[in-house]
């Protein structure tokens, strides 16, 4: 019994350490896409993943990476499940993940908008301030709401003149 518990914790730890393919400074646990790791009664590992965006091309890569790492660690039978509900939110990026993003010049998302009820369309400029991850200035502006990956937007700092990426609230 003790062995099983240790095994489950070890499996979880291994899965948690797998880097994200598109933001490799983050682990899947930092990003909040690893939704659970369990050992079944007959000894298989079941790891649950959720996509950040519906079209995220990294999902297949994440599934393969988690399965491969667990197999390398000696777990012969690994099953990866996709979880769609509840949908991923940028609120699930951990404090450690936010720190690592900042160290790599990527600004972290603010609180995600609350779900439930129709999403209002706001046309007046009500953009919240995003702090420059390089110089810390709040004098920043959005240059494009879309960037190299689905989860990021492009910003620039008016103080230090540097462009930077910003993980969107979702």
């Amino acid at each position, binding site marked *: 019994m003790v062995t099983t518990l240790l095994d489950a914790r070890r499996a979880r730890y291994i899965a948690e350490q797998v880097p994200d393919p598109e933001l490799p400074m983050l682990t899947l646990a930092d990003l909040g896409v690893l939704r659970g790791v369990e050992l079944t009664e007959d000894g298989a590992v079941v790891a649950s993943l959720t996509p950040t965006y519906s079209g995220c091309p990294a999902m*297949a890569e994440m599934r393969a990476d988690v399965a491969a790492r667990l197999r390398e660690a000696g777990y012969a039978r690994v099953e990866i499940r996709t979880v769609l509900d509840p949908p991923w939110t940028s609120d699930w990026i951990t404090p450690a993940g936010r720190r690592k993003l900042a160290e790599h010049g990527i600004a972290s998302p603010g609180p995600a908008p609350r779900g439930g009820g129709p999403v209002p369309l706001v046309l007046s400029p009500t953009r919240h301030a995003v702090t420059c991850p390089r110089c810390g200035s709040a004098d920043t502006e959005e240059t*494009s709401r879309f960037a190299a990956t689905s989860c990021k937007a492009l910003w620039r700092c008016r103080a230090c003149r540097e462009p930077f990426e910003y993980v969107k609230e979702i």
Partner: protein
Amino acid sequence: MSDDHVYMTLAEGHEDDTRWAYGTGFEDPLHGVDTTVPEGVDATELASLCVALADDALVSAQRLAEWITRAPELEEEVALANIGLDLLGQARLLYSRAGQVDGTGRDEDAYAYFRDADDFRNVRLAELPGGDFAFTVVRLLVLSSWRLAHFERLASHPDPVLAAIAAKGVKELSYHRQYAAEWAVRLGDGTDESYRRMRKALEQAAPYVGELFTAYDVRDEVVAVLKQVTEAAGLPMPVYRPLPGSGRDGEHTEHLAPLLAELQGVARAHPEATW
């Protein structure tokens, strides 16, 4: 190494989850999701709904992808490609769900690549040719507002898989609508030329808007959004004179078949190919 050709070598060794390049080896996007259809849900109806919503997304994504290398600015190209990618992701999930519930067991590729124009159920607005940037903005504004309103309701659909796909899509579609709305205001309230093009784009889209409201009761929400945006943009609200027929019944314009020919060409020429 059994073949000197680099691509042939790369195509070997598809055991387990190994793949030769990032993003290849696409597999079931609903892998490991509980596929049961709940009691009381009509499987045929559910499958038709999933296919229609997936067709809207796939055809829209293809039109958006046509902007790649042609958009007015790099930022807009990246934005349109990202929006297309979100829609493509929604289409993949919806096709996979349709294949699970309609009893055929078809995968996403069977729906996307091996059906003809008559079998597609997308609304006709999605398939109209790209036109200029103003038309792309108008079309995206109308379609994303409509899809968002629809997905907000589907998030409480009795089928948990469709409900989850919709709940996820709501977050993405909010960004799409925001992008289109801001551009609509900027162009409508911009130069004489951008205003003229926006008016023309609204007139071009108007005959195809009525079709959106035949099947689902989200008309009021969508009209409210269009009113809000056109007022802020100083543009007249378009007058809808619906054309007869509906893409939902498989009646399409002459523009869908060429779009599909480009989309499906490779998959049909090499039906068993893996890469």
